[in-house]
Structures are given as C-alpha cells and as structure tokens.
C-alpha cells in the first residue's frame, strides 16, 4: 500500500517557465500522497510576493511573449499558476517557505508575502526536511 513520500524543491527562479514545473509537480503530488516542501530563495521569492505569481514573466527577452503564452494557457485550458497554488493548498500537503536571508537582501517584509506562505525559514530547516525527503529538486 502507498505511504506518504516527501519532495523538497528549492525554487530559485521566479520566471513563469520555471514556476510552472514547480507548481505542476507540487499539485500532482497532492494526488499521489506526496508531501511537498517548496523553499523559495533568490528570484524564486518574487513568486511569493503579492501579485508575484500572476505577474511572473518568461525569462530574458522572451518576457515580451508572456502575454501570448498566457493566451495559449487560457485557450488550451491549462491551469494558471495561481490556480495551481490554490489546488496545492486545497487538496494536499504542500508547504511554502520563504528564505529569510533573501527577504533581507531583497528588502521584502512579511506583509509583502501572500498568506499561503507557511513560514519564513533558513537553510537549516530546508536541510532538515531534505535529509529525509525522497525527491530533491532545484528549479
């Protein structure tokens, strides 16, 4: 029989193309008894800021095509990033952590973050979780 497995992801990028796999894997995990821990650091932290997921763009010069990509997402009936986050929180055990050092570096305060953030933590918490996780990713 199935037993709960753990997935730990360092979310380093805040661009749409990288945030999609993060939230797709996390939401798929809710359907497969996988507990997911997302640790947002550096540019990844932007995704946790209010309006950050909605405003995430494609990287580099491709950012100009972000609107077109969003149109395609809509037409293809693919979930948006905020919808995926909602599913993560509604259906499963997905934890969102903001990196405290990044918050200091980027001058982000707790009030700037979306309410879905579970905690503000440091590297020790990630290591503690990652040491007994079954899947580790850096995205």
């Amino acid at each position: 029989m199935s037993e709960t497995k753990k997935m730990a992801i360092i979310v380093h990028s805040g661009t749409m193309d990288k945030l999609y796999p993060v939230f797709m894997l996390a939401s798929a995990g809710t359907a497969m008894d996988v507990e997911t821990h997302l640790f947002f650091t550096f540019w990844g932290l932007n995704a946790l800021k209010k309006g950050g997921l909605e405003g995430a763009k494609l990287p580099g010069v491709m950012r100009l095509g972000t609107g077109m990509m969003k149109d395609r997402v809509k037409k293809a009936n693919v979930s948006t990033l905020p919808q995926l986050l909602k599913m993560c929180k509604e259906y499963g055990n997905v934890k969102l952590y903001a990196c405290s050092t990044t918050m200091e570096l980027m001058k982000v305060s707790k009030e700037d973050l979306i309410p879905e953030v579970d905690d503000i933590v440091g590297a020790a918490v990630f290591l503690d979780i990652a040491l007994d996780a079954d899947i580790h990713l850096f995205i």
Partner: protein
Amino acid sequence: MVNVVSKGYSVTKTLDCRELYCPLPIIKMQKAVKGMAEGEIIKVLATDSGSKRDFDSWCRKTGNKLLESTEDDGVFTYIIEKTGGA
C-alpha cells in the same frame, strides 16, 4: 461523444477529464476516488496524451487497479477499480 461502456464492469462513477491537461486529470481523479467505496469502479475519459502513463503511475502509487485502458479517436477511456487509497 465517445462513450465506451466496458462489458463486464459495472461502472459506478464516470469522470470526464476531456480537454483537461496535466496535472488536472489525476487531481480530479484523486478527488473522485476519495468519495468511492472499495471495489467500486470508475470510468475516466481523457484527451491528454500523457494521461495513459500518468493514470498507470497514479494507480500503481495509490494502490488502485487499472482494469482497462482504451483509445478511440483521441479519447482515452480508463476503467479503474478502487482497491486502495486515494
């Protein structure tokens, strides 16, 4: 609409995942199976080309049984028995 009714299986629930893409089909599946009793059978329709492998993996991971998997004109039909958790 393609509606393959498998012979010999008494389907208690049908889940329409057509036009939905990964990861929505398995998320909806999880929700649907949660409300079912063990031994009950669900029929799932999907159009996502990755769903064949996804449902296979989902069943293996959650301990449910994929009884039948067919494709007709781009529509996949899965017959799954709830034999485990969800």
